[in-house]
């Protein structure tokens, strides 16, 4: 492969070399089962414990409130299903938003088939949930509010603290899918009124297949995997020790460099947004300008289709992502872009670029030049653009 410009950090990130290095001994040297009594097992148990402590401290949580999972989707599934089951006696109503990740939306659909009722809150044009809408949607039988911390497509940061406050005041549990936000910005579960939080390791240079669910002490929850006593009996199965060690290491790295990394990413993001807006006509920035993840750029380019755009970028070694139907395997474009009110054809022409602290300004320049050329080429063969130009005359 030639030089790759990787601008899909919301999809996944490179495992940091320090993370991979920290994991290695736990494959070949300290391979003991943490549940075993001998010292080889204790070494593994200690490493798992340290990672748990590391994570708990970053959230202002207690160590026994962190449960390791196989990633963000599992944590979302667990939070919703186990809470729904444990609180079915109180009610069967759940509130979420229309722009959640499918790990939440499809789990809600699963629960609906099993007799639960789900309210999907609308978002405004900027892609932000209004806490007052949450308040209005709460009913006596509401058991859970689940709203993501930051959106994976358009990068909008939700008013989590305010939504949590509404839920708390009404005696309803609050879960947030923080997969895109955790380890990228400070989160304190007490200050932000969060009862449950999902996170994923590979979004911040940790290993894939790792993540955790934070569950506040006192919340009733069901066991998600049945078997041994791992994760306080709630998630059975021998721990992914190397993965957990890698996750802990990635957390340590991300939090000790948070300000520096975030600053770099914001600078790259703002530069990219500014140049695209200035140099490519008929484009629109999706999502909120201010309340936005530091690494997220999402544009719609009118008259062009996203998959074509992605293939042409790929031919130039640029990795990006789109909300086009063609990239999702369905005929509908992204539910998030439709939820913020984009017409179908504009949603099909969307492009997400998510920068990382390792990217450079030179790479941003390359991307803008490539985009200008590609958008122009695609517009030249677009019947929609032809009609638009004829109408202008």
């Amino acid at each position, binding site marked *: 492969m030639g030089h790759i410009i990787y601008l899909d950090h919301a999809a996944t990130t490179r495992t940091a070399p320090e993370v991979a290095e920290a994991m290695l001994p736990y494959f070949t040297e300290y391979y003991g089962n943490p549940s075993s009594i001998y010292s080889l097992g204790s070494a593994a148990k200690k490493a798992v414990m340290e990672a748990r402590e590391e994570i708990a401290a970053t959230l202002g949580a207690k160590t026994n409130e962190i449960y390791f999972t196989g990633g963000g989707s599992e944590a979302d599934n667990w939070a919703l299903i186990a809470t729904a089951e444990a609180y079915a006696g109180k009610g069967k109503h759940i509130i979420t938003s229309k722009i959640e990740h499918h790990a939440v939306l499809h789990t809600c659909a699963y629960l609906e088939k099993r007799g639960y009722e789900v309210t999907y809150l609308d978002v405004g044009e900027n892609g932000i949930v209004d806490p007052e809408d949450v308040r209005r949607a709460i009913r006596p039988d509401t058991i859970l509010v689940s709203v993501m911390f930051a959106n994976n497509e358009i990068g909008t940061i939700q008013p989590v603290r305010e939504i949590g406050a509404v839920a708390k005041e009404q005696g309803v549990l609050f879960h947030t899918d923080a997969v895109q936000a955790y380890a990228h910005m400070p989160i304190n579960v007490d200050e932000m009124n969060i009862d449950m939080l999902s996170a994923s390791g590979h979004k911040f240079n940790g290993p894939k297949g790792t993540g955790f669910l934070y569950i506040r002490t006192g919340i009733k929850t069901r066991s998600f995997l049945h078997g041994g006593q791992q994760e306080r009996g709630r998630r059975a199965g021998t721990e992914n020790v190397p993965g957990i060690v890698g996750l802990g290491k990635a957390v340590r790295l991300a939090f000790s460099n948070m300000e520096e990394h975030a600053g770099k990413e914001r600078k790259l993001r703002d530069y990219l947004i500014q140049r695209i807006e200035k140099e490519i006509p*008929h*484009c*629109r920035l999706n999502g909120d300008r201010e309340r936005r993840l530091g690494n997220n750029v999402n544009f719609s380019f*009118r*008259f*062009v*289709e996203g*998959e*074509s755009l992605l*293939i*042409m970028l790929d*031919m130039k070694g640029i990795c990006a992502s789109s909300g*086009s*139907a*063609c990239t999702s*395997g369905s*005929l*509908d*474009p992204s539910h998030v872009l439709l939820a913020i009110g984009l*017409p*179908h*054809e*504009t949603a*099909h022409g969307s492009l997400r670029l998510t920068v990382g602290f390792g990217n450079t300004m030179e790479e941003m320049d390359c991307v803008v030049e490539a985009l200008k050329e590609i958008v122009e080429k695609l517009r*030249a*063969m*677009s*019947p*929609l*653009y*032809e*009609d638009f130009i004829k109408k202008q005359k």
Partner: protein
Amino acid sequence: MYSEKVMDHFQNPRNVGEIENASGVGTVGNAKCGDIMRIYLDIDEDGIIRDCKFKTFGCGAAVATSSMATELVKGKSVAEAMKVTNKAVMDALDGLPPVKVHCSLLAEEAIHAALWDYAEKHGIEIEGLKKPKADIHEDGEEGEVY
């Protein structure tokens, strides 16, 4: 995901453009599912397709099938062009992924729509040609400028 031929026709599409005073123009597709194709035909007095151009809004497969369809009908008689089916387009491209088969159908429909327009303009009937489905256009975006 795509065959080499599809990638070639996507990267170097043949016959992109418009034909002024075309004998027939057909636009098919649906902005909702993200594919719109327009085909222009230039047909001489003997019913031979002298030239064929296209414009397409859509994915890689949509562009490649349009490009291949124009190649397949160019120089053919109207009757021969009627035999250019979606399967013929797919075969010529060494196949398409299953989710993209609809693009080849669209290419066939676009050719038929352009032929229908030609037949209507010239008051003739083409054997086996049915009236194309009404195309769905850029609805709802009127007046939105950014």
